[in-house]
């Protein structure tokens, strides 16, 4: 019966083919470490956020007069409302933890290199969508930090030349953040996750076309690839278990860990909090914004500090695969970059006074310098490493790629020569 049903479907829809192609026969390098779990975890958190979000939306009121009360209604009166809300608020932070680790792995192993540029660029789009969704969602509890955070971030658009003021009013729907802003942020916060889900599909199609990178940086032979299911489904599920143990520790025992106390006071447009800080996951970029004295310059620097990741496949000129694994200078740059981002995060959390300003300026300069120096040092590093000798397989790969490039070049020249 089941077999006949499947056969009936298969005549009309490639169900079995799809499961084989994407799961049971999808070739995955067998040497992936647990750092390769985080993409799956990000997918899990996306589903968790959408599931809890739908149920929160059934009880939440996107109205400036009711929003704060409705969150307390969810926390106190709705059955397991506190669980939904804490899963959702902790889930937002978990999403960024997972995504930042996912990105750090890509940077460390150079997974953005050819031929995976489109995986990396669709990931960049996902990062922007995630940041937008988190920012929109943070206004909804309508607490003091929600309100003033949105006020500060929307006012950044004032720096747009010519139409700045009009643009801000258009975005807010009012001259200040108010009821109109809350309602539209709610509508968009509901919409964006569906866009994210769509881009995730594109991200996965791009990934499945070029297959996963792996810690060796070498394209493994067929015998070193194993089917995704059951090997990586079981490995990912075990990783998910570990993730959930930590995640639920926060949800059940320290749910306010990622929340600002000031956000437990209702939004008050007449009273500015002493110290406005964005959520922790925006702090490094916020520090970049504040470290540039000019307003427009600061906004440009902040946007660039996020978008600059997209340029990595172009900035990195080394032909040596495997990223930091075989490249000592790149590895040093990677660790310096991670440390620098942590310093920027600390700077973003502090009031901008005295030494904090200087540290912020230095850390911002280091941030951009590391990207700027990548095209400068990657070629000499490559030459040095080739002279010094690489593991035979890596050497082979680099030479094979060079041969391919030369052959392509020759073919192109031959085609041009005989019109």
């Amino acid at each position, binding site marked *: 019966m089941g077999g006949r049903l499947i056969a009936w479907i298969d005549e009309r829809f490639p169900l079995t083919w799809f499961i084989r192609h994407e799961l049971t026969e999808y070739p995955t390098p067998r040497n992936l470490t647990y750092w390769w779990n985080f993409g799956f975890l990000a997918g899990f958190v996306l589903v968790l956020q959408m599931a809890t979000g739908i149920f929160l939306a059934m009880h939440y009121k996107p109205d400036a007069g009711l929003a704060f009360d409705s969150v307390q209604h969810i926390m106190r009166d709705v059955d397991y409302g506190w669980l939904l809300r804490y899963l959702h608020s902790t889930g937002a932070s978990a999403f960024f933890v997972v995504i930042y680790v996912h990105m750090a792995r890509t940077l460390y192993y150079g997974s953005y290199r050819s031929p995976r540029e489109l995986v990396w660029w669709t990931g960049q789009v996902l990062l922007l969508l995630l940041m937008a969704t988190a920012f929109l969602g943070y206004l909804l509890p309508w607490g003091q930090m929600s309100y003033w955070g949105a006020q500060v971030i929307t006012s950044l658009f004032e720096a747009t030349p010519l139409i700045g003021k009009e643009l801000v009013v258009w975005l807010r729907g009012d001259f200040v953040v108010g009821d109109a802003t809350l309602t539209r942020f709610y509508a968009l916060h509901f919409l964006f996750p569906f866009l994210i889900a769509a881009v995730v599909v594109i991200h996965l199609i791009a990934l499945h076309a070029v297959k996963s990178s792996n810690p060796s940086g070498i394209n493994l032979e067929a015998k070193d690839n194993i089917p995704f299911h059951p090997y990586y489904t079981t*490995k990912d599920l075990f990783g998910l278990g570990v993730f959930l143990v930590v995640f639920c520790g926060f949800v059940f025992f320290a749910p306010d860990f990622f929340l600002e106390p000031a956000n437990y006071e209702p939004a008050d447009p007449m009273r500015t909090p002493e110290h406005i800080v964005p959520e922790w996951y925006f702090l490094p970029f916020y520090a970049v914004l504040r470290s540039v004295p000019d307003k427009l310059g600061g906004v440009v620097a902040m946007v660039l500090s996020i978008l600059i990741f997209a340029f990595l496949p172009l900035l990195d000129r080394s032909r040596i695969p495997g990223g930091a694994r075989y490249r000592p200078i790149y590895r040093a740059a990677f660790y310096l970059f991670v440390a620098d981002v942590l310093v920027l995060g600390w700077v973003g959390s502090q009031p901008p006074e005295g030494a904090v300003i200087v540290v912020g300026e230095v850390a911002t300069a280091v941030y951009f310098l590391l990207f700027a120096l990548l095209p400068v040092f990657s070629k000499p590093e490559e030459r040095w490493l080739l002279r010094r000798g690489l593991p035979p397989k890596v050497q082979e790969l680099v030479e094979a790629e060079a041969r391919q490039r030369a052959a392509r070049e020759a073919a192109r020249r031959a085609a041009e020569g005989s019109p």
Partner: protein
Amino acid sequence: MRRAALALAALLAAVPAQAWVASASDPEVRAGARVFLEQCRLCHGLRYVRLAELADLGLDEAALREAAGPEGLQGPVAPVMDAEAARGMFGLVPPDLSLIVKAREGGRDYVRELLLAYEQAPDGSLSNRLFPGIAMPDVLGVAGADPRARARAEEQARQVAAFLAWAADPRAEERVRLGYYVEAYLLVLTVLLYLVKRRVWSRLET
């Protein structure tokens, strides 16, 4: 396996939820509710707490009914003094305290210490170490109190802080209790998933 499950259950029973959060069954919370109704409620309300919930804490229902407004016990804990009178007396409307423990860095300890931070200056004027210029009077009579009165004030401050911690998060006890079971379940599940993963991967020749 069974022994491990029993050990886990014993561990769960040994860790009381009260160690983490303000529990509705804690006598300190109940005592704090009484102090709140007698003293704090003159000026401060708890808009997210219903009087009926205080009855559930073990407060006398008849007394609560007397304090109730038109909505009866289903109404919120409203301040005795209305906003206008308070503004006339203190120059501002005293804040609602439902979420004060969550809204302040330091939470419950901050509330307790603030209540005890009143001092009498040599010229007889009253001040608060933690909140200079506070409009709230020294309700517990801390400034210039003799050791016995001081001890009494400290006890009441602790009780009120415990009560307000409960009021800010009345589901905390339920949350922590459920948390132990969730974590126990997840730990067992994760160990099982690890074993499954190992068994599946053992099929690969090395």
